[in-house]
């Protein structure tokens, strides 16, 4: 039991890295995803095409391959970051495509009349997006975004295969060292994941309620 407690405290420290990875890439992919969604509905065709290619390509590629190309491909063309930054980049590139598609669906759900009204008072395309479309779109997509970000939380474990000592990487090592309590170590890791994911779920429910009130 003492052995397991020691393992759990080591694991909890590794979860700090998992959470850093998750939160930073969640924020970045929200920014990138919203920009991409905005570009996807923009009146400039090349922007629409570029984003559409990016979204279709990256969204349908297994995350491990996105990681592979990011971590080992970019250095071949002279771009070299730390493994943590590469993991952040790969997770952001991947998750942003899901955010973009979700936000785009949110944009399309806004009554066209409101957009016409916004244009008729002289707002530019960017202003229409910023003040009328996106605030409403983002609110309506809080629940689907919650699933996207919980998936991101779990997806961050792929970074363990690419040089980042997050929870799963440390779990694998713990398993190798403490071979008598393998199942308990895995069970404990799963339990921490589930507990944190449930916590995120609650946070999003709270956000959603706030978004509803503000409508």
């Amino acid at each position, binding site marked *: 039991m003492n052995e397991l407690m020691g393992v759990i405290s080591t694991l909890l420290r590794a979860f700090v890295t998992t959470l850093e990875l998750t939160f930073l890439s969640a924020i970045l992919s929200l920014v990138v995803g919203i920009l991409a969604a905005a570009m996807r509905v923009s009146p400039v065709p090349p922007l629409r095409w570029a984003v559409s290619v990016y979204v279709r390509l990256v969204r349908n590629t297994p995350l491990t391959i996105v990681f592979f190309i990011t971590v080992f491909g970019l250095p071949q063309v002279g771009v070299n970051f730390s493994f943590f930054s590469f993991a952040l980049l790969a997770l952001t590139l991947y998750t942003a495509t899901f955010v973009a598609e979700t936000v785009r669906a949110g944009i399309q759900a806004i009554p066209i009349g409101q957009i016409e009204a916004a244009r008729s*008072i002289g707002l530019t395309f960017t202003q229409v997006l910023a003040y009328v479309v996106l605030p409403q779109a983002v609110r309506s997509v809080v629940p689907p975004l919650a699933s996207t970000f919980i998936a991101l939380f779990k997806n961050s474990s792929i970074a363990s295969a690419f040089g980042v000592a997050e929870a799963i990487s440390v779990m694998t090592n713990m398993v190798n060292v403490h071979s008598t309590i393998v199942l308990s170590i895995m069970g404990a890791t799963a339990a921490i994941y589930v507990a944190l994911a449930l916590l995120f779920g609650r946070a999003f429910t709270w956000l959603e309620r706030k978004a509803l009130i503000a409508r």
Partner: protein
Amino acid sequence: MPDSVISMDKVNKWFGALHALRDINFRVSAGEVVVVAGPSGSGKSTMCRTINRLETIDSGTIRVNGETLPAEGRELAKLRSEVAMVFQQFNLFSHLSILDNVTLGPIKVLRQSGAEACKEALGFLDRVGIGDQAHKFPAQLSGGQQQRAAIARALAMRPKAILFDEPTSALDPEMVNEVLEVMTQLAKEGMTMLVVTHEMGFARRVAHRVIFMDAGQIVEEAPPEAFFTNPKTDRARDFLSKILM
């Protein structure tokens, strides 16, 4: 013709094979109230929407204050802000309070300060009779109140003209009058207005001129008295007989 606020010359528009607007020519002068009447599908709403370029046109020229309507960009946005629009479905921004609905344009387009815009907005809301609703959200208001808020939003842009696209068609009958009263008041104050409507009573009382459209064409153009008492075309007669029953 420099004192035309709105002018259309030989404007044509197709929706695929449908010739929606056929050689439309007309002018609205400053201070004039023009009612556009006609059966549904006659192109009157489409015409109204082309003036703000919510619909594109295929040929012809539309001028606002003598300036040709540009295709896209900031210049278009600027001209749009000078011609406000009131829609059938009100189209208030549902995530903003009534007050914020009214101040959004003045702050972001006219670059007014928040305090100034707010003060003016409350004035406009008082003018349309819903000053006490300023802090509510659109969904909390009745249809008539929402449409009056939309009129306040239009007024706040200090427009050269206001386009009304069937402003009472989506309202319950008991709310039609409160909106028409506000519009009548505006007309009396000298606002330039182009009103697409089926409210012939309003046309008769308030309009300086009635334009009758059918099948994408302007069929008849006359002062209200002349139009209602002595329509020149069969199509107008037919329309009036149906609508005035």
